[in-house]
């Protein structure tokens, strides 16, 4: 029957033939994994196991297992927390904001990006608990009725964090799951393995794709996107206020909220690339993640990189302009390039401000290996950015008596690396269990099969791809 349908090529996905092809290509990923995949899962699980052991040791012996000291009370843990929250940003950004703006290159990547968001928040969420001195009392931060009659302090940025990150996790998960229901139904319909069938039947909530379902789904998805968009912007703003609300020179800065949001999007996009580029290769999804997608994302990365670089400059300039030694010397950019942490500051500036400039070149934007390497640089650079902001500022504050450098301990490094294990463990399981590419929504941008010949409208955003 497919032969009866006139073949019309999509502007955005010229190599995707038909609706059925989409289902076939995507749902084939949901199959029995090979040894390579199992090895990766084992590696990730081992990383997470190491995290667990290191954390338990730290619980029993004390947070002194970390390298934290006076005056640096926050180090690798909070750095990694902010890093993961930042990573979590692009998912919902790509998904919600691009949805609202009807960006046509969203469909291929948003599922994986959303999964990344949810898992990154789940990873980030570990750290506020890991970094507590008495993690068994973490529930003191939650507002629950108790016989003592005491509540958390809503004036504390950390409580805002609980609310912001908690809301972000819930809303992202809901957004992720709701958007996935039709695709799970598709997976259900294609599934042959009994456990998968049962799982998808349960998760698809009996989705049939009727007009009524699609109508309400569409509205609900729109509102969720509308709610999620300000949420994305708020979450990293709130995280930035953990610092900006502090009196610490280098933290106490009004620029932090937009700057953190830009940085988060920057790092999130880089992480999307880091994950999608290998996935695209391994699962043969080149038809879905086209070079145009890469190009568009690269431009966005370049743009956010410029914002971040501008922020570095403004920070230095303003503290210098203020004429206050404490604030100038305490400024993380200044302190990190001139002081003990020059290596961290240098890494940050190289990875975040210099390397992304390569993206001005069209060849680089369309080269998979180049993008992958740049994305890795940005991931590293953004981790160091948070490290530099947190640590260098704390290491040299107002009180000269308590100026001291902090060195991360082995425990911290294990937990930091282990968090990648946890994240990739979730990501890997997701890849093989739930449809990693939006099956239904992709069809929206494919030309519909028509009895009366092609009717596809060329998309204004994409210029014709010269490579094709």
């Amino acid at each position, binding site marked *: 029957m497919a032969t009866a349908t006139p073949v019309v090529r999509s502007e955005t996905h010229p190599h995707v033939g038909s609706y059925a092809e989409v289902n076939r290509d995507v749902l084939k990923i949901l199959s029995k994994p090979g040894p390579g995949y199992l090895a990766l899962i084992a590696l990730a699980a081992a990383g997470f196991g190491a995290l667990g052991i290191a954390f338990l040791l730290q619980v029993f012996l004390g947070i002194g297992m970390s390298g934290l000291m006076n005056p640096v009370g926050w180090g690798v843990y909070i750095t990694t927390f902010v890093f993961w929250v930042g990573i979590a940003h692009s998912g919902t950004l790509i998904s919600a904001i691009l949805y609202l703006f009807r960006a046509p290159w969203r469909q291929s990547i948003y599922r994986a990006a959303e999964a990344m968001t949810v898992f990154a928040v789940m990873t980030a969420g570990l750290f506020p608990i890991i970094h507590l001195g008495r993690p068994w009392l973490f529930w003191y931060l939650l507002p629950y009725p*108790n*016989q*003592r*009659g005491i509540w958390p302090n809503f004036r504390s940025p950390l409580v805002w964090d609980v609310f912001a990150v908690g809301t972000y996790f819930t809303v992202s998960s809901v957004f992720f799951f709701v958007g996935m229901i039709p695709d799970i139904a598709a997976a259900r319909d294609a599934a042959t393995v009994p456990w998968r069938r049962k799982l998808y039947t349960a998760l698809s909530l009996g989705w049939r794709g009727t007009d009524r379902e699609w109508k309400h789904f569409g509205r609900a998805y729109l509102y969720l996107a509308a709610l999620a968009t300000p949420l994305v912007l708020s979450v990293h703003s709130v995280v930035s206020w953990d610092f900006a609300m502090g009196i610490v020179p280098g933290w106490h800065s009004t620029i932090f909220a937009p700057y953190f949001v830009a940085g988060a999007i920057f790092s999130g996009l880089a992480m999307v690339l880091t994950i999608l580029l290998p996935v695209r290769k391994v699962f043969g999804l080149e038809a879905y993640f086209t070079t145009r997608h890469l190009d568009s994302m690269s431009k966005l990365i370049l743009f956010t990189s410029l914002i971040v670089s501008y922020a570095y400059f403004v920070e230095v300039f303003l503290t210098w302009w203020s004429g206050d030694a404490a604030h100038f010397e305490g400024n993380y950019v200044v302190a990190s390039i001139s002081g003990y942490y020059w290596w961290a500051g240098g890494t940050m500036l190289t990875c975040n401000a210099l390397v992304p400039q390569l993206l001005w070149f069209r060849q680089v934007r369309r080269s998979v290996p180049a993008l992958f390497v740049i994305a890795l640089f940005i991931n590293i650079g953004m981790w160091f950015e948070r490290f530099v902001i947190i640590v260098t500022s704390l290491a040299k504050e107002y009180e000269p008596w308590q100026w001291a450098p902090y060195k991360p301990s082995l425990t911290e490094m294990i937990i930091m690396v282990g968090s990648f294990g946890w994240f990739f463990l979730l990501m890997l399981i997701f890849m093989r269990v739930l449809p990693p590419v939006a099956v239904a929504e992709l069809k929206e941008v494919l030309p519909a099969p028509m009895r009366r010949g092609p009717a596809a409208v060329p998309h204004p955003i994409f210029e014709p791809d010269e490579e094709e």
Partner: protein
Amino acid sequence: MNRMRWIVLGVVALVVLVGVGAFAASALGSGSPEQPIAFPHDKHAGPASQIPCMHCHYTADRSENAGIPAVQVCAGCHIPGGVPMVRTDSAGVQQLIEYWNNQQPIPWVRIYKLPDHVHFPHMMHVNAEVTCQECHGPVEEMAEIELVAPMTMGWCVECHEQRAVRTDCFVCHY
């Protein structure tokens, strides 16, 4: 089939909950542990003898600690001048005589216990005319002392609020 599974799960959850609750309840109250001497507060403080609390727990109005009476205090009545006297027939008094003769302290089991990060100055409460019974219950009727108050912070705070006493954290926790 599915329904059965839910029922089984529900029953298990219920059993666990009840178990935890019962354990918590036993840990909290009701229990009166076995004491080295079955000291009958009702016989001493009750209508028969009417010994005031402060006779034995005599530091309650001037110290943070109400004070567990020294063996000497018991002996003062029961073994005056080294001669066993009052109710020497009772097993408890016999035990007391033994402790006294060996000059051994009596290892009473603590019932009212606050965590160490709580400072409870007995003297302030006694002098504010909080009766002993308000926290310790009708001791003069108790053959065995048992925990009658939850000893929780909420319970403390409730009383403080009723009496318009400071509920500043730093009053009790430092």
